[in-house]
């Protein structure tokens, strides 16, 4: 196959480029979907996803390189920064515009020191909170979906309906108003705020699996509950993993907002969000002390969003 026609084909019908794989796909769908009529009916009318994947796969690297470049700077600074040596040893005046770039912060230390040390905390807190939320939310959602007793489902899931009625940042502020301010408390609070969404998604995905014929067969064969649970858990793992990126970005947003508002983390905490807060007063004298951390936070958030969206649409397309 030469390059010319394959590209033309890819633009029109990327999935039909290889007849054998298209054939396989069709038979698999016919198996999994008894109402194949409706599928055939709508398929030709919706060229959307196929055309978009064609465009995304045709120039594969340009988007990805831009995303990775966007992510490399903040992530690199966050992970490597704490191990870099301090730049400016001697402190000068706060918000000193004459100091070497990028100036000094509200205590008179170099802004670069804060930049190097300030990413680690946010990234680790967000990751730990997401992990904790999954450790708790995954079994809850799984149990709620797998159980054959409706009341267990209700008891496990109803409280989350009420939690969802409260704006997440408000819930976080409320919890922070009564909790002692430590880094671990922030992890706990952010995990709790993310818990309802995770449990719901796990439950929805697991319900779909639990209604499969395979599950019916396992029930009839008298497999143990543990065995069934493991089967469901393994089956929904791809769906849940795809959602994890969204949760991580959400946790990152909450951690940054909490740090900025000065709740949750202790007063001695210093990260990019805290830097934005404390250096705000000197934004006219030494703008870099605010602009640099804010730009890093925005770059990290935008980069993660684009990356996870790309992974998601890849998954949906394949």
């Amino acid at each position, binding site marked *: 196959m030469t390059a010319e026609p394959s590209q033309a084909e890819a633009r029109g019908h990327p999935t039909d480029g290889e007849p054998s794989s298209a054939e396989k796909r069709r038979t698999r769908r016919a198996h999994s979907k008894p109402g194949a009529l409706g599928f055939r009916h709508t398929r030709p009318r919706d060229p959307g996803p196929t*055309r978009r994947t064609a465009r995304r796969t045709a120039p594969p690297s340009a988007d990805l390189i831009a995303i990775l470049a966007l992510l490399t700077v903040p992530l690199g600074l966050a992970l490597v920064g704490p191990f870099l040596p301090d730049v400016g040893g001697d402190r000068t005046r706060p918000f000193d515009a004459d100091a070497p770039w990028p100036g000094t912060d509200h205590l008179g230390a170099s802004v670069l020191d804060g930049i190097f040390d300030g990413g680690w905390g946010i990234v680790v807190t967000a990751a730990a909170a997401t992990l904790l939320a999954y450790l708790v939310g995954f079994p809850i959602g799984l149990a709620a979906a797998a159980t054959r007793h409706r009341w267990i489902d209700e008891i496990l899931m109803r409280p989350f309906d*009420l939690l969802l*009625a409260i704006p997440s940042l*408000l819930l976080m502020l*409320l919890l922070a*108003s*009564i909790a002692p301010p430590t880094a671990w408390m922030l992890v706990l609070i952010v995990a709790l705020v993310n818990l309802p969404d995770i449990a719901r998604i796990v439950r929805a995905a697991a319900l779909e699996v639990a209604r499969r014929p395979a599950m019916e067969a396992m029930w009839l064969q008298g497999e143990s509950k543990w065995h069934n649970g493991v089967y469901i858990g393994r089956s929904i793992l791809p769906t849940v993993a795809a959602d994890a990126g969204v949760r991580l*970005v959400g946790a990152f947003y909450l951690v940054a907002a909490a740090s900025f508002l000065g709740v949750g983390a202790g007063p001695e905490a210093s990260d990019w969000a805290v830097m934005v807060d404390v250096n705000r007063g000197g934004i006219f004298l030494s703008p870099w002390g605010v602009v640099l951390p*804010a730009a890093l936070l925005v770059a990290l958030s935008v980069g993660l969003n684009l990356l996870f969206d790309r992974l998601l649409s890849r998954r949906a397309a394949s």
Partner: protein
Amino acid sequence: MLAYAARRTGLGFVQVLAVAVLAFALVELLPGDAAVALAGDQPDPAAIERIRERMHLDQPALVRLADWIGGLVTGDLGASLVSGRPVADILGAALQPTLVLAVSTLVLLLPLSIGLGVAAARRRGRWPDRLITTATVGLYSVPEFALAVLLVSVFAIGLAWLPPTAVGVPSLLAEPLVLVLPLAVLLARPICSIARLVRAGMIEALGSEYVAHVRRAGVAERRVVFAHALPNALTPATAQIARTVDWLLGGVIVVESVFVIPGLGTALVDAVNARDLPVVQGIAVVFGVTTVAVNLLADLVAFRLAPRMEVAR
């Protein structure tokens, strides 16, 4: 419709009640003696006694819960521990700036996000669509304060086009220029999520049988898009509009802090930092009731738009 509305309203009442009980429970969840915990780092016996008396902590919890709910119904939310002012007064004074922000955001949000979504859907795959899609994905959960600070440094400090904060402005409505940057920040996230949903809904609607039929019947394209496809495309977006009110309230808290606007968000952050629980409880109830009410309204509208797909819980 009526049966659904009655059932959904009932659920709303339960949620409001739950929010009220949760706000009340904040005091109960305080570790140890609530009065001691609230008195701060240097517990002064007189202050502890005053707090205990003002919050009626010597009475059983159930009696206080009944008082708290009864007070909510009559608009009596207790008094601030810091200033001694009635919480209802504090809320009343802070309500206006927040309302101005929230209402003008919502007024701008719908036309902008629907317009962007429709524009992207009609040019699907071409550069306007790719630009809008990338921007809406990228800005989806950008922290508002970081965006706000960047906008301030560019437009207020670098270019000096707009005022950086609302300090010294008697009323937000008197100085509309002050509102530009806060509104831009508040709109960023909701526009992204709603425009994406409208785009997806429009693409589906424009490819549907009935739109093909209307086109074959010779109806003008503008009418096809706005009168036939758009109403159906909006249904999934309605639920998301309600969800963005959640973000909007969170955003209001942050934006008021960045731009120094004396609204409910600033009052809440101040109260949390001062451990002024009566004020925290009052604002929590106001925010919670707003969220519940908006969700209720959105579900009813979605049901009215497309009764076939009941927004079941």
